[in-house]
C-alpha cells in the first residue's frame, strides 16, 4: 500500500506533501514515514495517510467567468478619480 507523507518544517508552517512510502499497514507506515522524512530532524511533525484516503480535485468549473471572484471585478480607478474631483481632493501627481 502506498502512503502519502506530509511534513511540517516548523511549528506554524503548513503541512506540505513530502513524498510517499510503501508499507503493508499503518504501523509500518508510521516507521517508514518517520524514517524517510524525519530522520535528519528536518520536520517537527508528519501526517502519514493511505493514498486511497486522499481525494485529488483538479477540475474547477467556471464557464461563465464569474468576475466577482477576481480583482478585475472591482474597477475602482475611474470611480475614485471622479470622487476625488468632486471632493476637491485630486491626488497630487
Amino acid at each position, binding site marked *: 500500500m502506498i502512503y502519502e507523507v506530509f511534513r511540517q518544517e516548523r511549528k506554524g508552517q503548513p503541512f506540505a506533501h513530502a*513524498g510517499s512510502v510503501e508499507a503493508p499497514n499503518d504501523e509500518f507506515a508510521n516507521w517508514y514515514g518517520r524514517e524517510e522524512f524525519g530522520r535528519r530532524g528536518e520536520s517537527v511533525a508528519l501526517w502519514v495517510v493511505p493514498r486511497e484516503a486522499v481525494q485529488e480535485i483538479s477540475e474547477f468549473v467556471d464557464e461563465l467567468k464569474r468576475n466577482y471572484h477576481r480583482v478585475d471585478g472591482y474597477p475602482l480607478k475611474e470611480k475614485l478619480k471622479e470622487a476625488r474631483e468632486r471632493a476637491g481632493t485630486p491626488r497630487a501627481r
Partner: protein
Amino acid sequence: MTAQEQEFLDYVQSGGQVETSDWMPDDYRAKLIKFIEMHGNSELMGVLPEREWILRAPTLQRKLALTAKVQDEVGHSQLIYRVVEDLGKPREQCLEDLIAGKSKFHNVFHYPTKTWGDVGVIAWLVDAAAIISQKALLKCSYAPYARIMKKICWEESFHILHGRDVILTMMNGTDEQRELVQEALDRWWGPLMQFHGNPIPAEDDPMFIWRIKSQGNGEARQQFLDGYVPQIWELGLTVPDPKLGKNDNGVWEFSEPDWDELKHVVTGHGPRTQDRLGLRRTARDETTWVRRAVLAEAA
C-alpha cells in the same frame, strides 16, 4: 508531432510544470522513466562501493557519518523509484531490469574502492559532481521529480561536508595519509571527468528539449571544475591532467575524457559491474520471502 504534443512541448519549454495525472506524450513519459530510473539505479548501486567501508571506518564518528550517508542514498533510491512507479513502471520491475543488466547506472559506481582515501574522494568529489546535475534537476519539467530533488540536494550537501572533513583530516595528518588521498584522486579523476557525459549540444539532447534536464553536459562539467579544482589545488593535491587549466575566457580546458571507456563501462563492463550486480541479485533472492510476507502484492 501531433498538435497536442506540440502544445505540450511549448508548455514545458516555457517553464510549464507537469504533474502525475496530467496528459503527457508517450515519448516524454518514456524518456522520463528511463532517465529517472537510471538515477534510482545509480543511488542504489552507489551504496555498494561505500558500504564495505562502513565496516572498516576508523572512528565511531566516521562510522556513523558514513552509515548515515549510505542510508541517505538508499532513501534517495526509495524516493526516486516511487516517482518512476507513479509514472507506470513498478519498482520490482526496475530492480529486476537493473540486476539483469537491462538498465544503466552512472559510470562511477562500476569502479573499485581500494583505500580510505577513496571514501573521502567519493564523498567529496563524486557527490559534488552529482549535486551539480541534481541542482539543475530542481527545474525539471516533471514536478514530482523536481520536488524530491530538493530533499536529495539538501542531504547531498551533508555528504560533501563529510567528504571534505575526511580529506582535510588526512591532508593534515601523516605523509602516508596524504599519499592515500593523492593516489585515490589519481584513480578517480578519469571517471569524474566522464561523469557528466559526452558534450551533446543541448538542442540535440531530447532530455533538454523536454526540459527534463535544464543543463547541458558540457555546462555541468564546467561548473564542477570551477567549483572543485580550486578546492583540490588549495590542499596541495595535483590533478593527473597536464592540460587542465582555465583559459582567458574563463573556460576550463582539459584532456579529452575517454568516451570509449565511458561507453564500455555503462554498458555493463566496468571492473566491478558484475560483482556488484551479483551481490544485489543474491541479496534480493535471499529476501524474496520477506517481500512476499510483508508487501504481499509485490512479486
